[in-house]
């Protein structure tokens, strides 16, 4: 995927008229270290970069700066932009991965343009044609650069969000085989319809795999339990029951239970115990007696 | 060696004129949702919903047809199911969509249940003009091969 992105950037950069690029690069290269340092300074000042800023050494920064300069030089001189294009994509992906806001990196990287412009005027002030061409070159260059970084940023951000959401979902609903025949499912975080369905499916699949006859579902970590969420858990309990498994619900405070009953939720369908430990003890009792009320 | 290619047409019509039609409609639903790459869970939801609406056709109209069609939406492919009959129609759709099972009625309409199983759901019905139930399950990933296209 990033190869198509860098290929697009390579083509776009190669399409910029060479004379425009050369005029722009002439000024940029003269001021390269200074301009580059300014941009780096702006970036590292962002809170998201705090950790990175403390780890990165002066030497490393200098090395990277030089490498980018060489890539730019190669591009302008030979028209071969592959390396720089990949660099742009990698940059965007890094910002996306680090969770930097779009505006933040845009402003930081855009500093370069603001710094170069006055120098362009100074360098070409005498010759209007050259100034115009130089500015056009700069604009075209930055258009491609920003668009490439931006696109890579968005793509990476979207996939990072999805990975994070999946990870959160995974983390918050591990199904733990505590003992043969028993599963424990600690639920943490907000439970909406989608998550509730996922939870139910995960639990049922885990019951099938581990052949459990008792499952303890702990909802201490669920911030709010309204009648909708309660009904979701009732469904989970009923589905497990169809597979012959008893579900013990723990972590439902008496206050919330009372409120739910007032709202018309039929809590008799739930086997509730105060806390997780109590629930596990109850589960062990059930397993030890191997009692399952027939016809209940 | 040639691979055995299973091609699924992008639409199928299953006449439902007896209770055997319910089974045929279910099987067609299973085949098409599997071909569309729907998850095992979603396939079961689809087949169950089809069973409910097909049964409704037999119960209230005596005969009708279940149409299955691949459809595209903003997030990919889906399976659209239309249960069409020319029966007496539903006088009060809102009433029909209220759950009957909680009051203990064994002959509650399968419509509210089917709605819970599917993503999109709508009914058009006029007394004396029959009923059409339309429902969609999204989440298909596989591209269906049109019957007759060369491999």
């Amino acid at each position: 995927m990033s190869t198509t992105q860098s290929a697009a950037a390579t083509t776009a950069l190669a399409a910029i008229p060479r004379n425009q690029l050369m005029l722009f690069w002439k000024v940029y290269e003269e001021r390269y270290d200074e301009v580059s340092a300014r941009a780096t300074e702006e970036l590292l000042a962002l809170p998201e970069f705090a950790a990175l800023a403390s780890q990165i050494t002066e030497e490393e920064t200098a090395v990277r700066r030089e490498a980018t300069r060489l890539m730019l030089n190669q591009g302008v001189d030979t028209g071969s932009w592959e390396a720089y294009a990949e660099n742009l994509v990698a940059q965007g992906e890094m910002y996306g991965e680090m969770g930097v806001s779009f505006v933040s990196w845009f402003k930081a990287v855009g500093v370069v343009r603001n710094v170069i412009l006055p120098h362009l005027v100074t360098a070409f002030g005498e010759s209007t044609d050259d100034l115009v061409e130089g500015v056009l070159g700069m604009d075209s260059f930055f258009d491609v650069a920003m668009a490439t970084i931006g696109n890579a940023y968005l793509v990476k951000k979207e996939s990072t969000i999805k990975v994070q959401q999946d990870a959160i979902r995974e983390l918050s609903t591990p199904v733990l085989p505590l003992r043969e025949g028993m599963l424990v499912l600690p639920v943490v975080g907000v439970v909406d319809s989608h998550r509730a369905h996922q939870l139910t499916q995960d639990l049922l699949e885990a019951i099938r795999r581990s052949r459990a006859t008792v499952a303890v579902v702990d909802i201490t970590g669920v911030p709010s339990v309204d009648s909708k969420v309660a009904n979701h858990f009732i469904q989970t309990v009923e589905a497990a029951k169809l597979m012959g498994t008893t579900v013990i619900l723990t972590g439902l405070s008496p206050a919330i239970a009372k409120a739910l009953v007032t709202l018309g939720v039929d809590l008799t369908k739930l086997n509730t115990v105060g806390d997780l430990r109590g629930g596990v003890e109850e589960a062990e009792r059930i397993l030890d007696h191997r009692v399952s009320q027939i016809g209940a | 060696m040639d691979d055995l290619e299973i091609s699924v047409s992008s639409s199928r019509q299953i006449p439902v004129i007896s209770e055997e039609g319910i089974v045929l409609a279910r099987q067609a639903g299973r085949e098409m949702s599997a071909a569309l790459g729907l998850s095992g869970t979603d396939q079961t939801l689809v087949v169950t919903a089809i069973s409910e609406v097909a049964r409704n056709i037999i119960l209230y109209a005596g005969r009708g047809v279940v149409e299955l069609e691949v459809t595209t939406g903003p997030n990919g492919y889906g399976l659209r199911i239309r249960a069409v009959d020319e029966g007496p129609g539903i006088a009060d759709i809102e009433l029909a969509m209220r759950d009957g099972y909680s009051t203990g009625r064994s002959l509650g309409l399968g419509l509210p249940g089917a709605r819970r199983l599917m993503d999109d759901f709508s009914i058009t019905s006029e007394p004396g003009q029959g009923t059409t139930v339309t429902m969609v399950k999204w989440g298909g990933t596989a591209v269906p091969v049109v019957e007759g296209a060369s491999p």
Partner: protein
Amino acid sequence: MAVPILRQGDILLVTLQGDLGDADWAQMTDHLLDRVAERRTRFAVLDLSVVDVLDSFACRTIVGLTHMVALRGSTMIVAGIQPNVAFAMVQLGATLPGVATALDLDHALTLITHG
């Protein structure tokens, strides 16, 4: 489609396979009730581990069958409902009130010997 019913002492085992039409359910119900009546039968186990869909009709039939079996002095246990099927059933709102369930045939037999 004839549904096989096996007897093991005072336990009957019914294994449903594939997709059953209404007539198949009716046939199975009649057949099972006959077998329950023919000899002392403590338990009848309905094995649904190879059934991939249970609609509201199937659920009503199972509940009715459980009661009829009980009237004849036996207890029915429904075993092997698959996760996807259980999920669809609760979404549909068609649960099996008053019906004993077990994860699979093995668990059903454990239930019978230890319950």
